[in-house]
């Protein structure tokens, strides 16, 4: 197929759609990390002493930790100079009361991203807590949420206004000493979101935050904490795009979810950060720790993710199934194109009785991308009648990419029922022939088949994201016919 080669070429040369740098004066700390920097970040946020101490504890622990290098990344990545990063960067203005006060340039950025704050909120009924670099600049629909008793605010605000909640739950799922990048995050996190849903409340709307990395050489260290009390429900959406730049950027976020008895948290992610150019230069390092704890009986946490961006994705959204009958789910589509590398998957840790988990992972490799599924299913001795179903399928498009599957299955209770299935395939010639014969263009046919391949996962996304997800998938794979 001569045309497919052309389309592959055109795809390879396609410019990153969201690559632009907004020129706003940032108030940044000088590069480097030490006690003073951590204290300065804490002071800028007006944090109480316990928070500062917690950060320092994390910093001191981080300094003793060796940097891990175990992910399966065939192209590797250059060393990260942690002293060359600036750990704080905020848009210069503060204390915004309404959108009118927001820097017009900032609003323009959102326009370009296709997030007209005011319109979208009204249309979709979505409260957007927009994070521009590290400081939340606008939080809307707050009133409606307040009526329901839901707290949805930047975490820095929560630290000041709801210290008892933050102190109780921060670090309770991902302790400050958890791993190298989570510990770094604990020391220097700039901002993020905090959600608290009280007992019995069904959150009246989908919550969403847009993260965006701006200001060169600034690592983004977001911290998200979501607590769902007994019998409550919340659905949280997170979507990302980042401007084009040359140096690799480190993104080490931490997301903690706490679901109490009968609570249900649904966390959805669309990640489309800058993946680097054709040689894999530039692009985001996405080293994120995401973990949820099902603390009570019948609590339920589900992760849904669509990962199409980043030079390197290295993350394992996990669920700790502590409560009896609790349930964990992981639905993921990861696309690697160009020279992108992904080592991602999930961990399901069964502790309570009759716990169940479902893992559906779809990896698509195109161009010279490498996609690795790495997942752990652990059944502890006390987890009677635990149940796990894992399906991880890989699709290869082109002959220079790679798809790898490394599951870890660790069973310590014989009553467990664990199934793991994996397959690797390419887009079948017969499938293509069938579509083309019916007058469907090559590109549409690929998009159709890929969408079918990912259907099980995409169906889990909330409506607001599903449209964007479909669009993103077809853009990511335009023309890459096998």
């Amino acid at each position: 197929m001569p045309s497919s080669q052309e389309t592959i070429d055109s795809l390879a040369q396609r410019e990153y759609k969201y690559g632009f740098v907004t020129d706003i004066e940032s108030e940044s700390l000088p590069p480097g990390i030490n006690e003073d920097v951590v204290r300065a970040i804490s002071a800028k946020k007006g944090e109480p002493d316990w928070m500062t101490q917690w950060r320092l504890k994390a910093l001191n622990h981080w300094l003793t930790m060796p940097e891990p290098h175990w992910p399966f990344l065939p192209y590797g990545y250059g060393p990260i100079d942690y002293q060359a990063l600036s750990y704080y960067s905020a848009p210069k203005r503060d204390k915004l009361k309404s959108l009118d006060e927001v820097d017009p340039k900032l609003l323009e950025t959102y326009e370009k991203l296709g997030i007209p704050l005011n319109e979208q909120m009204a249309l979709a009924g979505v409260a957007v807590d927009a994070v521009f670099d590290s400081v939340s600049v606008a939080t809307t629909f707050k009133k409606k949420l307040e009526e329901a008793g839901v707290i949805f605010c930047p975490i820095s605000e929560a630290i000041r206004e709801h210290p008892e909640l933050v102190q109780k739950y921060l670090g309770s799922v991902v302790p400050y000493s958890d791993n190298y990048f989570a510990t770094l995050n604990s020391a220097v996190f700039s901002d993020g979101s905090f959600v608290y849903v009280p007992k019995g409340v069904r959150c009246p709307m989908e919550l969403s935050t847009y993260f965006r990395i701006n200001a060169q050489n600034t690592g983004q260290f977001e911290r998200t904490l979501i607590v769902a009390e007994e019998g409550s429900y919340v659905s949280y959406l997170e979507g990302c795009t980042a401007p084009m730049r040359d140096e690799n950027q480190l993104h080490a976020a931490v997301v903690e979810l706490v679901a109490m008895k009968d609570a249900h948290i649904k966390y959805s992610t669309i990640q489309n950060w800058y993946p680097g150019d054709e040689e894999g230069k530039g692009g985001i390092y996405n080293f994120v720790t995401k973990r949820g704890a099902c603390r009570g009986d019948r609590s339920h946490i589900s992760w849904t993710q669509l990962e199409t961006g980043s030079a390197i994705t290295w993350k394992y959204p996990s669920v700790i199934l502590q409560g009896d009958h609790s349930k964990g789910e992981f639905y993921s589509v990861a696309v690697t194109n160009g020279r992108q590398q992904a080592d991602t998957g999930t961990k399901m840790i069964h502790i309570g009785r009759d716990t169940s988990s479902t893992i559906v992972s779809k990896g698509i490799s195109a161009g010279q991308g490498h996609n690795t599924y790495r997942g752990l299913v652990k059944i502890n001795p006390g987890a009677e009648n635990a149940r796990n179903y894992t399906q991880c399928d890989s699709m290869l498009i082109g002959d220079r990419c790679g798809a790898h599957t490394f599951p870890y299955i660790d069973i310590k209770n014989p009553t467990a029922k664990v199934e793991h299935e994996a397959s690797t395939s390419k887009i079948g010639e017969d499938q293509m022939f069938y579509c083309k014969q019916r007058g469907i263009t090559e590109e549409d046919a690929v998009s159709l088949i890929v969408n079918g391949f990912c259907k099980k996962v995409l169906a889990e996304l909330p409506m607001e994201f599903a449209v964007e997800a479909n669009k993103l998938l077809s853009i990511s794979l335009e023309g890459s016919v096998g």
Partner: protein
Amino acid sequence: MTPIDSTTVSDALRLESFETFARESIAQAPSWIRPLRTEQLERFVAQGLPHAKLEAWRQTNIDPLKQLALTPASTLPPAERSERLAVPEIESLDAVRLVFINGRFSEELSAIDRLPEGVTVMNLARAIEQGLPEVRKHLTQSSERDDVFAALNAAMVEDGAYIRVRRGVCSQRPIALYYLSDPGEQAVAAFPRNLIILEESSELTVVERYVGVAGSVYFNNAFTEIVQGRQANLEHYRLQEESDAAFHICGLDARLDRDAMLAAHTMLFGGQLVRNNIHPVLVGENCDCLINGLYVPTGRQHMDNHMRVEHVGTHGDSRQYYRGILADEATSVFSGRIVVAKGAQKTDAKQTNANLLLSERAHAHTQPQLEIYADDVKCTHGATVGRLEQQQLFYLLSRGIERITAEAVLIYAFAADTLERMRSDPMRELLKGELLKRLPGGDRVAGVL
């Protein structure tokens, strides 16, 4: 693990301090092999002994082995026979017989007779002494680069079996290698190595059987190197029935040329700590490779199986079937990886691992893995861990069959697939017997099945 007290033995040394001993031993070896062994020793030294932080050793703790004061087998006077062990000959097999005691060849017990024309069989020490060209060409050439015990074995290589089948020869007689371990009071470390060369269009069956004096502590680091020419067909069996206190680390490394067929069967019964590395490389196109295994740990045995099936040539076909039956506090590891290299199109690779837990305290770790760099391939893997199906058990119980018998029937059924993949009737019958002997209630069903 069994407590070990062998500190009183004077020549004994720990694994970590093997370097000096190995250098002395290399200095006495024929000159042509010195560079090869030295190179492998350097690798052993450079890599150091495995620890739990290494991905490949995460679930297997070799500390008890590290703490063992070992006596290298080559420092002992050669034994022609064992007082405590008889050769566990497989009668109906009618095989050429090579017997090794503590890793060293015993001429007296062996019977290398009625060799088909074109088949060369001798002990490796002799082949090294003679400096045969094939041995110079192939020995230690296939050792996996990141396997430290393969390097140690190659650095210490002294004896084992050397087998060569010439072009076009189909040997009707199998070759059986019996490794007897009778270490006495000392914890003997032996490093047997087998080199099997099958030239174009040849055919052979090889059986390796490892037995040891019950309760004795020793370390067997065995390695088998297989080179198969075009269309060569090898059926390989490894039956491991070491003492329950023994350490057994073995490797099998095979290179397959175009249209070659390899069937590697493994049955693991003995050893307190067992590591089984299998690494076939399908170099030529259209190769066929079957990796078939059964591990049956009981008590506090730990059995670790590491497979790496590499597809390099196109149209390769590989199947891995590994099954484990775990009782008491036994633990097992299965880590299987299919690697499909760039350009190995039309590969069809399959991998399954199933584990049957007979006790609450038995643990199975399984990691079926795929690493794929070609797009036109079919690769699947699957793993299961579970206990006896309660419905099936109920079915049998409700028909008046005693529980112990019913369980034995179901356990046997779980393992039967593995046995049925074996082409050699005597081997299948032997292994069936060995399995039933070890199953509670196995004697009751032996006559029926």
